[in-house]
């Protein structure tokens, strides 16, 4: 099995899917001959040509709107938003159009569009190249929101997303593009959407995360293990639909929960998870649910490593909940 980084696994997934399905077209700013600003689509333009790997004008609303029209007329477009921070001009097209086309046409017009976007901080990108807007999309019925953290999951989840008839927001942790490496099966395989993965099994607390923060949480778990504290660490992998079953299985075992995300705290997706756990498993909880998140500030430039949750903050939250 080849060892790939997360970026290569994305390209591998696109290549695998495009070879099998002529309807899949990749589109976005500089995704063509240049291969994308991160090189996720490297080589695809040469292999599949300019009609399937399309350089678009710099208009996110235009890219998403055109992708919707393409999906109406038989294609399965995969628009890339160069940075998730650039998605806001396309927000109306995503939340009002893409997410609702199937529903508001009573099923006549499904919209099989997979919107790829690198997200998250830690690359010295400042506020236009670092944000984590997943909660906005999780608040939108009609979408699926998928966030892989490893190369194998990235390929398997992207292939699963490309087989969907519903729109998928596919958020790629750009900090892990080259940092995360692992064995990735060749050819086609799918990792099911809507299923969390137990990364570490433990007894004292549950830690939930997604994207690049999973790797930070692993560091925290390693620190805690030296103190005799073991955690159930779940990589949610999909936020919509959420694998509530896996979350409840873990928290009813540990009775303690720490949720970790990069996005600002207020209105972040951790709040939704905390509410669900309170609704379904309050009597199993031994301590208040804690959140380790970015601060309620715009994403900073020079101070991003103070803003981003690190292993020390996560470990401290786990100690706090265990000591409660």
């Amino acid at each position, binding site marked *: 099995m080849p060892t790939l980084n997360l970026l290569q696994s994305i390209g591998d997934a696109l290549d695998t899917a495009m070879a099998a399905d002529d309807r899949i*077209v990749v589109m976005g700013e500089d995704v063509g001959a240049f291969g994308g600003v991160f090189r996720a689509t490297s080589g695809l333009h040469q292999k599949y040509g300019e*009609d*399937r790997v399309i350089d*678009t*004008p710099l*208009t996110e*609303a*235009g890219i*998403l*709107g*055109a*992708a*919707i*029209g*393409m*999906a*109406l*007329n*038989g*294609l399965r*477009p995969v628009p890339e938003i160069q940075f998730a921070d650039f998605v806001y*001009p396309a927000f*109306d*097209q995503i939340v*009002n*159009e893409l997410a609702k*086309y*199937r*529903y*508001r*046409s*009573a*099923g*006549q*017009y499904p919209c099989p569009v997979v919107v790829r976007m690198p997200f998250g901080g830690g690359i010295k990108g400042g506020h236009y190249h670092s944000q984590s807007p997943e909660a906005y999309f999780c608040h939108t*019925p*009609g*979408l*699926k929101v998928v966030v892989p953290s490893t190369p194998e999951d990235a390929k398997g989840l992207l292939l699963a997303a490309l087989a*969907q008839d*519903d729109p998928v927001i596919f958020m790629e942790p750009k900090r892990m593009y080259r940092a995360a490496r692992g064995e990735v099966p060749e050819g086609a395989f799918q990792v099911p959407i*809507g299923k969390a993965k137990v990364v570490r099994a433990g007894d004292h607390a549950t830690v939930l995360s997604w994207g690049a923060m999973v790797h930070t949480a692993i560091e925290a778990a390693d620190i805690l293990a030296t103190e005799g504290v073991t955690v159930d660490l779940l990589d949610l992998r999909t936020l*919509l*639909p959420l694998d509530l079953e896996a979350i409840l299985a873990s928290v009813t075992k540990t009775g303690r929960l720490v949720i970790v995300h990069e996005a600002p705290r207020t209105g972040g997706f951790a709040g939704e998870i905390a509410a669900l756990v309170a609704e379904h498993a309050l009597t199993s909880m031994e301590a208040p649910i804690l959140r380790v998140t970015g601060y309620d500030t715009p994403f900073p430039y020079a101070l991003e490593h103070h803003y981003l949750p690190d292993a020390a903050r996560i470990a401290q939250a786990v100690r706090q909940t265990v000591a409660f």
Partner: protein
Amino acid sequence: MTPEIHTPQGLPEVRRVLGPGNEAPSVAALPKDDLLDMLGVMIRARVLDGRLRQAHRQGRIAFHLPQGGAETVSAALALGLADQDWLFPGSRDLAALLQRGVPAEDIAHAAYANAASCSKGRALPIFFSDKARRIAPTGATGATHLVHAVGAAWAARLQGLPGIAVAAFADGALASGELHAAFNIASVQRCGVVFVCHNRTGLPLGDLGSGYAFPTHTVDASDALALREALAMAVDRAREGRGPSLVDAVYPMPVTTAAGTEPAPDGLVRLRRHLEGLGLWTAARDQQCHAEALAAAETALAAAAAVPAPDPATLLTDLPGA
């Protein structure tokens, strides 16, 4: 301080085919059957619009957007479409739906938002969708659907399929960024799209398309023949793979003089008089057409009123995983 106003040097001339007496210079070359069909559709649209307005005022339906004399442009924009073509109507394009073959019953179901409606009662009636006829719902923010039309036409080209897209919008959408995105992408990618502006500003848009390297046809919105001619040119260009066009349908304004205010010319009346002048339309035929349209509208509304509201269980269908 009064701001300096830039006045363009010479707006494009508004193209007219019908003369002041609604005569046309060369009747022999005009497709009379098309014009008769078109007038019939316009009358049906106006009558149905009238009944829907009544139903709205009576509180029998929750929403209706009056067509406001849009029938001429609306009927014209759907006239030259083939089955494989796409229609992205604006919010006052009832006539385009009828021209495309949508039964009045389906429009009434949408107006009643009942269980038989195209959206299962989920959308306002102006966001009408009909996949079998390749009609996609318009967007509420003015120009959102223009980019969808570009994508649909683009997809046809990429797949080597026949089919173009006609997308209508109102002048309010001119301020929207997505209009620029749609025009830009359509031009860069040579998408077979015809953009039609219901322009009620009273002034031509100017040669707006030239900034995007595509033609603008500036026509009198009350002149069915001029509209038909412009649409035919734009549709041909799209079909031949030469890219998009803009049809700027300029609605004539009421004229106020010392003697009072003359209402704006009505495209429906003008087309009727034109066909009467050719001996192709008579008062009797007009009366019969109106009576049939009214009967059809009544039947449609009665049928729609008899269909129950959507089952509450449908609230949770047509969603991911549902």
